[in-house]
Each structure stands twice: as C-alpha cells, then as structure tokens.
C-alpha cells in the first residue's frame, strides 16, 4: 500500500509541479527588469490550451514527428521517476539506476533531435546539431559528477548516492552541476529561451514546426527536465537524507526554489554567450566535476 502511495505521490510531484518553475523564473526576470511579467501559472494555461489545439504539420514529416515528442517526454518522466524526492521513493532504487538515468536523458535527446530533423528545415537542423554537440561535454560533466557521488558513498544507486553530504567537493560539484543544468535545459548563457531569431537558438529552434498537443508535450517535458535537474543538483550537494524526513523535504523544496531563482537571476544579469564560447564554459563544468571527483578520491568515503 505504501509503495502505491509513494508512486502516486512522486507521479503527482513530477507531473504537476514542473510548469511552475518556468513561471517562477519569468517572474524573477520580470522583477529584476522592473516589469510585472506574466502570471506565475502561465505555462499551465498554455499547456491546457495547446492540448486542445489542432496541429499543423510539415508535408515532409513522417509519423515519428509526433512520436518523437512522446518518446522524449516519457523518457524524461521515466528518468525523473528514478530520482528519489526527499525520503519518498528511496525504496524503488536499484544498483546502476544512475546509468539508466543518464541514458534515458540521452534517449530523450535522440527523440527530440530526430523529430526536429523530420521537417528538413535548416534551422531545425542547426538546433539539433547544437543540442547533440553540446551534450557531448554535458554528458561528460554529468558522468563525472555521478562518479564523484558514487565514490563518496561507495554505492551505485541513486537513493544512497544522493542522501549524504558529498564532502569537501560539494562547492565544485554545485558549480559544475548548475552549469550543466543551464546547458541541458537551454537557458542563458547557452541558449536564450525568449529569442525570436532562429539562427541563434538551440532548443527552441528544434521545436519550431511543432504545434498543438505535441508542442504541449515538449513544453511540459522541458519544464520537467528543469525540475529534474534542480532536484538532482539539490540532492547532490545537500544532505537531504541525513536529516528527518519532513525537514529533508522542506530543504529539498528550498533548494529547488533557490536553483530556480538562480536561473532567473543569471538570465537577468547575463547575456547569451557567443556560440564558440559555449564549449569553453561546458568544458569548465567538466573540469569542475572532475576536480570534485579528485577531491572525492583524496578525501575517502563518507558512509551514510
């Protein structure tokens, strides 16, 4: 019974909460710029409206144009379901689920890029090429970060890896993972979610031709990925599992909110990087995570 409850609770968390984050980021950006900004719940309204809209599809696209977003969304949701939310969901973890998490995100990337290439548009080609290329470095950084946690805890399952305090390398890990979060969720300085110039976009360029329910799925998936990375970042650097359950959950929510605020502030204070500087920043993230790994190797393990 408790397992079913656990499952329902986590599903509700991952399905209902995500659209709030982009709303919060937009509110932060609006406040920083002295505007009032759209309602915090705007994405919920958008999703509800898009779900009911009809679809315009390119003549050259195959059925995979619609299947792609569905696959990507399911993969991101499945990845999210592997991550424990505070004390909830620690029981379903298994050895090696961390690798599954990384590769489910890769599956989502494959499906999104495939759907983008369906239309034969040069802009979507550009977006897809950038997405899959930047992921090469982001993936290396993520793997290094996960290795750090694994070395710290002598474990290969997320529920154990994410619960204790990751030792002296926490700051390096936080910086590295935050950079990866910005890159993977297509935020400034890697990508500008508000731009209207196709030539400079990454994620938004890939979904130019999508409309209606598939676009709703893509938008929800993007928000879900943002929440997933925020939770992952928070649980990686804060000792969520080391304190009492409700306190851990509260700490997790505070962490997610802080991350969201951070994304909003970065977006308000920085401009998008030139494309040739993006790999340098990602390489910095890789190095930060590798240094965290070195620290973990030196520091020995902290067992939870």
């Amino acid at each position: 019974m408790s397992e079913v409850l656990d499952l329902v609770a986590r599903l509700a968390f991952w399905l209902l909460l995500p659209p709030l984050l982009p709303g919060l980021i937009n509110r932060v950006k609006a406040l920083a710029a002295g505007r009032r900004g759209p309602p915090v719940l705007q994405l919920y309204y958008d999703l509800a409206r898009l779900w009911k809209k009809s679809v315009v599809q390119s003549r050259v696209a195959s059925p995979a144009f619609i299947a792609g977003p569905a696959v990507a969304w399911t993969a991101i949701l499945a990845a999210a379901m592997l991550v424990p939310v505070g004390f909830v969901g620690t029981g379903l973890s298994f050895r090696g689920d961390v690798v599954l998490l990384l590769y489910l995100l890769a599956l989502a990337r494959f499906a999104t890029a495939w759907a983008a290439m369906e239309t034969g548009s040069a802009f979507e080609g550009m977006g897809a090429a950038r997405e899959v290329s930047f992921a090469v470095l982001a993936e290396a950084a993520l793997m290094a970060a996960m290795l750090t946690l694994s070395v710290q805890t002598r474990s290969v399952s997320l529920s154990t890896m994410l619960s204790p305090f990751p030792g002296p390398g926490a700051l390096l890990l936080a910086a590295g993972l935050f950079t990866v979060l910005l890159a993977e969720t297509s935020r400034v300085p890697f990508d500008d979610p508000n731009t209207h110039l196709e030539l400079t976009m990454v994620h938004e360029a890939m979904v130019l031709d999508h409309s209606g329910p598939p676009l709703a799925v893509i938008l929800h998936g993007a928000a879900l990925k943002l929440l997933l990375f925020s939770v992952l970042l928070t649980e990686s650097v804060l000792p969520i599992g080391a304190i009492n359950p409700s306190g851990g959950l509260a700490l997790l929510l505070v962490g997610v909110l802080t991350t969201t605020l951070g994304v909003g502030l970065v977006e308000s204070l920085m401009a998008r990087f030139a494309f040739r500087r993006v790999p340098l920043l990602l390489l910095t993230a890789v190095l930060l995570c590798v240094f965290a790994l070195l620290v973990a190797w030196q520091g020995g393990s902290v067992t939870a």
Partner: protein
Amino acid sequence: MTPPLLLALAAAAITASVGLAGPRWSRWWLLLTLAGTAAGFAAALGVLVGNATWELRGGLTLGGEPVHLLLDPVSALFLVLICVIGAGGACYGREYWSDAHYPASAARGRAWWSAMLLCMGLVVTVSNGLHFLIAWEAFAVCGYFLIVLERRRREVRAAGWLYLAASHAGTLLLFVFFALLAGHTGSWDLGPMRDAPRLTPLFWLMLVGFGLKAGFFPLHIWLPSAHANAPSHVSALMSGVAIKMGVYGIVRFSGWLPMPPVAGWVLVTVGALSALIGIVFAFAQTDVKRLLAYCSVENIGIIMVGVGGSLLAVSVDEPVWGQLALAGALLHVWNHGAFKALLFFSAGSVLHATGTREMSRLGGLWRSMPWTAAMFGVGALAVSGLPPLNGFVSEWLTYLWLFDASSSARSVGLAAIALASAGAVTVASFVKGSSMIFLGTPRTTPAAHAHESGWWMRAPMLALAACCIAIGLGPVVVWPVAARAVSAWHPGWGTTSAPPALVTLGQVHVVLVMLLVLSIVTLFRQTRLNGLRRSVTWDCGFAEPRARMQYSAASFAAIVSGWFTWILWPQSVVRRPRGVMPSEALRVDHIPETVLERLVQPAGVVVTELSGAARRFQHGGLQLYVLYVLAGLVAIGTLVWVEGPR
C-alpha cells in the same frame, strides 16, 4: 544430438555448399548454408546452455600435429555470432548480390562466403597453434576475396589491398607469437598455461597481432575503407563477425596465458581512447558505410575496456566487478554483432535503391523505404546504447563495473567519463545518419526514385531487429550464457544467476516500452481528435523551401569536428561566391584517414626511400662486388684481431 555430431554436420554442409555456389545451384547453396549454420548454432547453444565443454584430441594428425578441437563456452559464444550473421547475410546476399545483377561475381561471392564461415568456425574451435595459424590465414584470405568481389572499381582494389597488407602484418606477429609460445612450452598444443611467468611478454605480440584484426585505434587503418567498399552483406560479416575474431584471440589468450600486471590498464586505456576517437571520426564522415565502420572502432573500444577491466580485476583479485566487466564485454560482442549487421544491411538496402553512400545526396527515404527506415532507426537506437534495447544492456554492465572499480582502481573512472562522451557522440552520429538518409526531402533524383527492398533483404533485418529488442527486454535470458563464458575464461568466476539489478533493469525496460507505447498512442489520438493540417515546412518565411536548403551531413558535425581538428585534420575545398551575380560557389569537406595518411604512409615513404638508397649497392658491377667481399674480409679480420684470441 550432441555437439560433435552437430559440428560435423555443420562442417560437412558448409563444405558441400562451397561446391554448390554456381548460379544453377544457388537455391541448394542457400539451403545447405542455412542448414550448416543452424547445426553450428545448435552445437554452440548446446555447449552454452548445457555448460558442457566438448573436446576432441588426437586421432588425426595434420601437418605433423595432432588435431585438437575445443568448443568451450568462450568459443561457443563466438560461434553463435558467426552462425547468426552468416545465415542472415546468406539470405540477404541472395537479393543484394544476385546472379541477375552481378553475373560475374555472385557465384564467387557465395563460394567465398561459405569458405569464410567455415574458416571462422575453425578459428574459434581449433586448439593447436599451427592449425590456428592456418585457419587464421585462410579466414583472412577469404575476407580479402569477399571485399574485392566488385574488383573493377579502383577503390575496391585499393581497400582490398590495404586489408590484405594489414591482415598479414597481424599474421606475421601472430606467427612470432605462436612460434615463441611453442618454443617456450615445447609443443604447439594450446590450453591454459597461466603458471608460466616467462610467457608474460607475449602479451604485447598478442595485443598488436589480434588488435590489427579487431581494429581498435590506432590499428584500425584498414577498417574504414574495407567496410565501406565491400558489398554490404560482406561489410556486415566483416564488422559484425570478422573483427570479433580479433577480440576472440585477445579474450582467449588473455585467459590462457599469464598476463603482465599492466595488461589491464593498457587495454582499458586503448579501449577508452578507441571509443572516443573512433566515434568522433564516425561523426565527421559523410559516407554512411564509413560512419558505420568507424563506429565499429568505437564498439571494439567498449569491448576492450571490459576485457581490460577483467584483467585488472584478476591482478587485484576483485571477482565482483571483474566478472561484470567480462560479461559486459562478451555481451557487447553479441549486441554489436546484431545491431551493426542490422545497420549495414539497412545501409546496403539504401545503396541498392539509390546507388550512393553519400548521405548528402540522400534524404526523405522514409516515404519510399519505410521498412528500411524503421530498421535503421532500431539499429541507431541500439548502437547509441539507449534503453530499452540491447546496446544499453551491455553498456550498462560496463558502466556498472567502472563505477564499482573507480573507488579502488581510481583512474578507471576517467574511462567512464570518456565512454559517456563517446555515447553522446554516438547519439549525435546516428541522429545525423538517420536524418540525412531518411528524413526531410530527397536531395537528388536517385533518392527521389528509391524503392523498398524485397523480402530476402528485409527478413534478415527484421530478425536482427527482433534480436536487438529481445535482448533489451530480457537481459536475464542471455546472462547465463555470458556467465558461463566468464567462468570458462577464469575458473571460479561467473555466477549463473543474474545479478538482481539486471533483473530489475529488464523489468524497467518492459515497463518503459509499455509507457512509450501508451504515450505515443495517446498523443496520436489527441492529435487526430483536434485535427491535423498539412502545410509547408516553416522556414523563416521562405515561400518555397528547397531540398538544397536542408542541413547537410558535414554542417551537422561541424561543431564537434571543430573540437577535434587536432586529430581529424579536416580538409575543405571552398570556392566563395564572388561579384554581384555570382555564378557558382562550392564547399566540399573531406575527413582524411589521419593515421593512415599521416603516420603509416609517411613511414612507408621513409622505408621505400631507405630501401631505394640501399639498392644503389646492388648495381651489377662485378669488380665492386669483389671489393665488397674484400672489405668484408678485412672487416672480419680487423674484428678478430682487435678482439684477440680467447
């Protein structure tokens, strides 16, 4: 039936089929080949499932050496691969390289195909150094004749020659390897000899000798051109099976011989480098078969990381992750065989329909070739190591040991990071490959008039795709097979009950598939409910997007190629548009074979020049020859005089 009987049947059927390769008997050839591979498959399965090693010793002698055959789980694992791809390719070749299209070479192709299967079967079963060398050489020569089936084309001949040269360089080293082995042990007979520490230096000969066949970086020089220029079913056999013979050699002899302590580290390093650099080369290619060939370099790298891990575990006595490493590597041998053959078959289907391997001349083929497109898609997902297909299962096992080991044997963690990057480049390469060939609009007329291939070509693809999906959803079923091979490799290792996490992974894969189907169906239903209108692709306000406006294969890879110019050395011919009304502009990108053109060829030039210089001494002037003899005598005399009497 027992393995020896089945093996004898298989050998007899395949041998007989060599004689029936003529056009009038092609039906019988196919029947016999299928029967032979089925018998071989059954024998191997009997060994793998029953865990009964079959050995035949003595009786006959061949070349003065007693015949010694051995079919243990390690060789049975490779025999299964030979039989499955051998049978699939035989069916595929019936349509792809038919007598009607290639009257001159179809029969020859069938004969060499059977001979190659037979020789590879012998390589994995003979257990005598001399016989191994004979089988190895015969197998290499069969491969050569299969590659040059279409020998009128110059690049085919060049590829075949390069293959033969590299192959013989490897055989030469193996000659030395086996001769030294026989010299040290006093017999050509092979078997476990782990207690002879003086054999450890032989590891290096073995590594390079078998490595040239396996084709890991930088010994892959022959691989891209041979795989690209061979007929596609031959490419599938070469990439899916033939290079695995090199892996077989390394796995087999690293289990039998004592290894230097550094061996594990060497293999892990070579494997990780090979994975990353191989896939970067693959991403930069514009020829689809070259892309697949370089991707093989990557996958051999992943296998080598696993083999290296097991050697490492032997040296530090860590059986837990040691067996994970070898099981992952051996499963990847199967998995890579299945999805790479599938990909080469689909690429061959495209080549058959359009006559080109250049991705930038294709596009939009999903409409005319839906089956091929779907099969290539399955192969692309599998090769990218994405859940829930088979590629992920073996990569997952590989990562699992890397994670386990990075607490104690620290630096292997860096291999995990390299593999993660390589995995991301694989995703990129296969998004590029699939989309350039099958998505968008046709870029040229042949691509616009493509046609789907027939059932003889489609059936093997479907079967291999089914294998990829089945292993992905039921990894528990294949685990005991790998575990038995592991225990044959290192007695005491290999638990036949699957690790609990692998069981969970299989269940998660099944749930994932159900979720995927559910969400796809829901999205399609909602889309149909709301109404769907077809329109032109939105291209920033262009009224009429043209096929030429699509992103090209080279541009797609430009970002990553830019990071790796230090090894890729990309060359491009650029003619910029000039003047007010520019007539033509052009840009051609080309990725050279770096190791071949920058390392092997310059070395060859130096050797040729040195030999040319040495040739001046041989000029035919008798007087000067007498002078040489005199000078030689004087030199020897001086030497004796200086050394003095002992």
